[in-house]
């Protein structure tokens, strides 16, 4: 409540000081260049020039490639490999997208990716939330040792462990289970995410124990307390953790290449599938497939952009 109140006052003060012309969302604190300097005659001109230059350059650099990502898939194969390249499809062929979808079986890859990503999300939410709740509120013996050992894994570069992880997944110690090719090969290792546990535990630590004690006096079980009290309060941090865990599986390459594609091409993810199809598939179909692989992530980003950007900075730094 307190933070909401201060935020509201800050906006009101900001508005009053800056007048009505400035949007309320812009922070009112001064930055490198003072408002006085910015409002002089030359200051205004320079500001305009810099603003327009930034917008133009950013649009060219970041939207430019995306423009080609989506339009080059509409070209015919001849046009896609014409010299010099055309700036827009002269004979747009939406059928390239259909061809690409059928030939690369994009539907199957999309389904695999969604299946792995949401499965990993479910496993992470259940096990990481439970673990963070236990470490934060139930405080078992050796809890701090476990937490320290989990956080220590953040120091180990992930790609280095690919070989022993692969060997472990291919043959579990003692039981000799082989998980290669099964979705669990992606789901279970994703739970070993120290950053999730750290974020969740830090948030749970900020929940006053009074709430939990009160519920406990009323006879609520620990699971009930987690479900009815801790989880509803923790919605923002769970949102952040969910978004980042979905994106991580969606963007992963080496691990699904080894444990899924290496087992059978029918298990491949989008990211691996379009890479392995690039040899022997016409250029326009590859670009169309790349565009189709990018669409879900772009839509996802535009919907959740506020949460994603807030999570990036609130969650501190992520490697």
């Amino acid at each position, binding site marked *: 409540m307190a933070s909401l109140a201060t935020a509201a006052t800050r906006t009101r003060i900001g508005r009053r000081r800056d007048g009505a012309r400035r949007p309320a969302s812009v922070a009112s604190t001064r930055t490198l260049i003072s408002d006085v300097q910015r409002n002089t005659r030359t200051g205004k001109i320079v500001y305009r020039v810099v603003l327009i230059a930034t917008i133009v350059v950013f649009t060219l650099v970041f939207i430019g490639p995306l423009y080609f990502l989506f339009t080059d898939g509409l070209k015919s194969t001849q046009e896609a490999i014409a010299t010099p390249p055309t700036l827009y499809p002269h004979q747009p062929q939406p059928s390239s997208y259909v061809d690409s979808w059928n030939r690369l079986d994009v539907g199957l890859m999309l389904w695999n990716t969604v299946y792995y990503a949401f499965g990993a999300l479910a496993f992470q939410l259940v096990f990481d939330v439970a673990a963070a709740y*236990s470490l934060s509120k139930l405080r078992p*013996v050796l809890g701090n040792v476990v937490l320290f050992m989990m956080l220590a894994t953040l120091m180990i*570069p992930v790609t*280095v462990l690919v070989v022993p992880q692969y060997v472990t997944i291919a043959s579990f110690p003692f039981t000799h289970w082989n998980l290669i090719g099964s979705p669990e090969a992606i789901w279970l290792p994703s739970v070993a995410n120290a950053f999730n546990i750290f974020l969740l535990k830090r948030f749970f630590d900020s929940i006053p124990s009074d709430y939990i004690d009160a519920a*406990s006096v009323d006879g609520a079980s620990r699971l009930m307390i987690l479900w009815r009290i801790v989880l509803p309060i923790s919605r923002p941090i769970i949102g952040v953790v969910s978004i980042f865990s979905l994106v991580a599986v969606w963007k992963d390459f080496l691990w699904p290449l080894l444990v899924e594609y290496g087992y059978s091409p029918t298990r491949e993810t989008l990211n691996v599938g379009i890479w392995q199809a690039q040899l022997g598939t016409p250029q326009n179909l590859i670009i169309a497939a*790349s565009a189709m692989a990018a669409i879900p992530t772009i839509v996802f980003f535009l919907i959740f952009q506020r949460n994603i950007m807030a999570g*990036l900075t609130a969650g501190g*730094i992520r490697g």
Partner: protein
Amino acid sequence: MADVATRRAPRLARLAAPAPPVPGRLLAKARRNTAAWGFLIGAVLCFTFFSWFPIVREIIMSFQKPVYGGGNTFAGFSNYIRIIHDPTFWQAWRNTLEFTILALVIGFAVPFVVAIVLNELRHARGYLRVLVYLPVMLPPASALLLFLYFYNPQYGLFDDILRTLHLPASQWVLQPGDGFFSIAMIAVVIASTWMNMGAATLIYLAALQNIPGELYEAAELEGAGIFRRIRHVTIPQTRLILITLLLIQVVATMQMFIESFVLTNGGGGVDNNTMSVVMLIYQYAFAMSGASNYNSASALGVILMLVLAVFSGGFLWATRERG
């Protein structure tokens, strides 16, 4: 302490009232621990199998060799000795260092400058922030295959731009040559920076917004120009973030894999001139037909782990707060 007492109160009351308090408390403690470990056990098992055990196993495997007919035996340093005699080993390290330096020159400075400019703008900030982060969200293979298309020496867009500007065309990632800053590696870095700079930019931007305006005010009153204000206010105020991101970026770029892997179709470029250490681990373990060898790959992994640990330790020691 208070919360422990209140949590236990109802349970103690429910137990037989005249019972001596010590066994009751022990029982409650045991129950509390059982429940707590019940919540914890799933994550602990996953960490054990997929994080803690592989770390140990990597070190063990690097000192083993397979025995004909199954099983492993102790092999001393033979895996290490074999890989340091592989010429590709040294080339991979040199390329990785080259990538890291280039990625720092471009990938570290550019986001900071961009963040400073964005922080001065009063319009279109939401739009620009979305733009800079958009590539981070794309599946890396999509972005890299698009760059591979742009880099194509026959029908690629980049060579067309160079020709329009009457500049000599380039082979980009296919450019032979193994100088310390090869064209091929620069092409890899450009694609990598485009893909990844959004996150760093937004983190810097958040740090810049936390700098108190009074500091700039004071510096200006003292007669400091823009660059001196950046030098004496902006950089010291964001020092912690700059140092942390620098460390994270070096550790991340030393593990470069997918950029070179996709842009060279898994091959490592002309004469391996973009082969990185992690790509070599992959090749040792999975790609060398017939010679596939988890033990050599583990030895290389251990070396990379040690190098990064020594670097991180040294870096943190060198940048520690003095006084």
